[in-house]
């Protein structure tokens, strides 16, 4: 397929996934504030950190109140990672490939976009109670993902679509874990308290993983949650799961096996998958969870660059002919 189309479908998918992730964190944080507001001060700042936009936020807002945090993440057109900005990018990219995605997909993206655009015109309704808004964003994410799975050909574009989704999700899970580990507790002595537990549970909910975690890991503990989110092989929100899936899709594009590699993207992603595959909970803590996350972010960056160079760059090696005009 055209490099530019592959690029568009990849980013369409990433921005769609991003909007869903933001909606989930927001929803969970909202519920968390309802649970613990009697005893503890509610925190909205960490939520901003989950999208990595603390700098932009603190430069343009005076306080991290509920109103400003929710507005920033949903309706702020100047924030490139707000839900409205994400959906704009989803639609813009979808427009470029409208002829190769199913009409149902385009139509739902379009209706989704108009819903969001109308909703953010009345931001107060969202900041006062983001529940309905978040539900809609999550619902459209599932709907469009379902259309991709059920209606779109499982060919190259599907591989780029899926790869975008999984790569975005792996980055977002990494960030949210890191945020919990460093910012949320009032002081180190709160580790192991009710608040700590409530927060770990919230974290699991934010990636739709609480039920899965309970069934297979039982009681919550920081170590178990961290290894569940980073290393679990079955949970679709875990970093390793996402990267393994992304690797499968990457190799489907070039029609190669995952134990070999034919381009820079496969090499980078393969190395990353392997290093996580042979990692344990103890290794994580020995290395330091925060350091581990930082390291992951750097490697994500390399994978991203390699994917761009391999597939999307508009300048493959072509000798430009010289013309006299």
């Amino acid at each position, binding site marked *: 397929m055209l490099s*530019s*189309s592959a690029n568009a479908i990849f980013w369409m998918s990433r921005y769609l996934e991003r909007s869903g992730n933001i909606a989930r964190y927001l929803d969970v944080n909202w519920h968390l504030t309802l649970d613990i507001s009697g005893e503890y001060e509610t925190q909205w700042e960490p939520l901003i950190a989950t999208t990595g936009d603390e700098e932009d936020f603190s430069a343009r807002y005076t306080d991290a109140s509920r109103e400003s945090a929710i507005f920033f993440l949903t309706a702020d057109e100047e924030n490139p990672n707000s839900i409205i900005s994400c959906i704009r990018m989803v639609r813009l990219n979808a427009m470029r490939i409208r*002829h*190769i995605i199913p*009409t149902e997909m385009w139509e739902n993206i379009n209706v989704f976009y108009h819903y969001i655009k109308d909703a953010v015109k009345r931001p107060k309704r969202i900041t006062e109670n983001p529940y309905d808004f978040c539900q809609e964003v999550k619902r459209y994410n599932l709907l469009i993902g379902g259309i991709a799975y059920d209606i779109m050909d499982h060919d190259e574009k599907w591989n780029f679509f899926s790869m975008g989704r999984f790569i975005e999700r792996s980055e977002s899970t990494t960030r949210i874990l890191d945020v919990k580990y460093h910012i949320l507790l009032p002081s180190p002595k709160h580790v192991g308290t009710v608040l700590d537990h409530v927060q770990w549970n919230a974290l699991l909910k934010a990636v739709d993983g609480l039920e899965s975690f309970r069934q297979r890991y039982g009681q919550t503990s920081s170590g178990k949650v961290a290894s569940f989110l980073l290393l679990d092989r079955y949970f679709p929100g875990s970093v390793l799961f996402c990267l393994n899936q992304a690797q499968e899709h990457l190799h489907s594009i070039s029609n190669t096996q995952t134990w070999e590699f034919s381009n820079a993207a496969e090499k980078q992603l393969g190395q990353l998958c392997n290093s996580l595959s042979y990692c344990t909970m103890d290794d994580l803590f020995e290395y330091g969870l925060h350091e581990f996350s930082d390291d992951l972010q750097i490697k994500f960056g390399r994978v991203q660059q390699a994917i761009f160079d391999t597939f999307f760059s508009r300048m*493959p090696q072509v000798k*430009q002919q010289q013309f006299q005009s």
Partner: protein
Amino acid sequence: MESKYTFKDYQLEGFYDELVDSSHAPRKGAQILDRRLDSLSSEELLAIQNSAEKAFFDLGITFTVYGDEMGTEKIFPFDIIPRIIEAYEWERLEKGLKQRIHALNLFIDDVYNDQKILKDNVVPRELVENSPCFFKECIGIKPPKRVWCHITGTDLIRDKAGTFYVLEDNLRCPSGVSYVLANRQILKRTFPQVFTRSKVRTIEDYPSLLLEKLYEVAPDAIERPNVVLLTPGCFNSAYYEHVFLAQQMGIALVEGSDLVVNEGYVYMRTTKGLEKVDVIYRRIGEDFLDPHVFRKNSLLGIPGVMDIYKKGNVTLVNAPGTGVADDKAIYAYVPRMIQYYLDEEPIIPNVPTYLCSEEQDLDYVLGHMDELVIKEANGAGGYGMLVGPRSSKEMQDAFAQKIKENPRNYIAQPMIALSRCPVITGDHFEGRHVDLRPYILYGREISVMPGGLTRVALKKGSIVVNSSQGGGSKDTWVLGK
């Protein structure tokens, strides 16, 4: 329930109406529709109109309102009452269009090759060679099957007596066909019963017919040519159409930056390297096509593509250079071309045209500015024109000045009282002026799509149907025998 939307007290105001005859009875082809309309209450009809509009909106068949920072999007105005053309009328139009396109194509091929028509002084040489749309770069080119105008959207109008005229031949990049297909899709949902009983001819196969023609004009000996559609990008006002056609034909939609010229061929950049391209259905103006040859600063085109085209290694559709026959001054000579090349009388007449480049005509035009419609020879979109009877003395004087400065650039035509069609307004039907743009495809042979874009000037009394100036559209039903 009594509906206010009925043809009974519909006002004709002296114009020819496409659906209603002078005794206020529905024309034969519109009788089934009339009965259906009578069975609907006003509320029901408006509800149908609203749901049709919502369908357009959800499908994203919209344009962004200029200067609106909120990015408000609107649908192209659409009226659910169809325009109906009966079988016998269409038969004549189809023959006339084929005849005209045949002659025009011969003319284009002639002026870029043997120039017989110029040597025989049937069309003045200076008129052709001074046309800004005559490209010297195209001289000597013999495109596959000698076809230049593969896709044409001829504008037809009808006067008070109901006679059809050709108003313009759009031979460059005519747009609008996607609206024809979208309008039809929506109208099928709107009036299903009327549809089957009226024997409306299908237009569904247009994309596959178009693809077939594009295959037919590929460079020789290519079995399954790689056809692409070249668009200026998703901010272009016709982008919806580009996407739609690419999707329906299952071909790649590319921008200039997706294509590259390399060692004698055109390639597109894919995730797996370069892939050869054989036919480019270009939806960018020819002057933007190749910065090496035409506009030097064009970022939309493909540097070097003209060279490959001249070698016959890629086909450009429509061929660059067709614009010479689109010049409104040359338009006046089309009836003579038909006689010259085909030895036939034109089946669909031209609107009488005065050429300001000719002294006698110029004097007449300057003396009758309040009666004539005066247009730029290469204007489009309803711009650069003066509608004499609707203009002030000052506007006429200013326009006269422009004509005197460059007479070659202007033509004039008598004001035609365009036919009308009922549209839904407020709480009743009112007549609005319409034109008709059928689409003609030319590959191995010429085919005319049974239908076309009926554009309607929604402003009361207006005769400008262009969508950029408040025009809307209607589904066009060509009835079977």
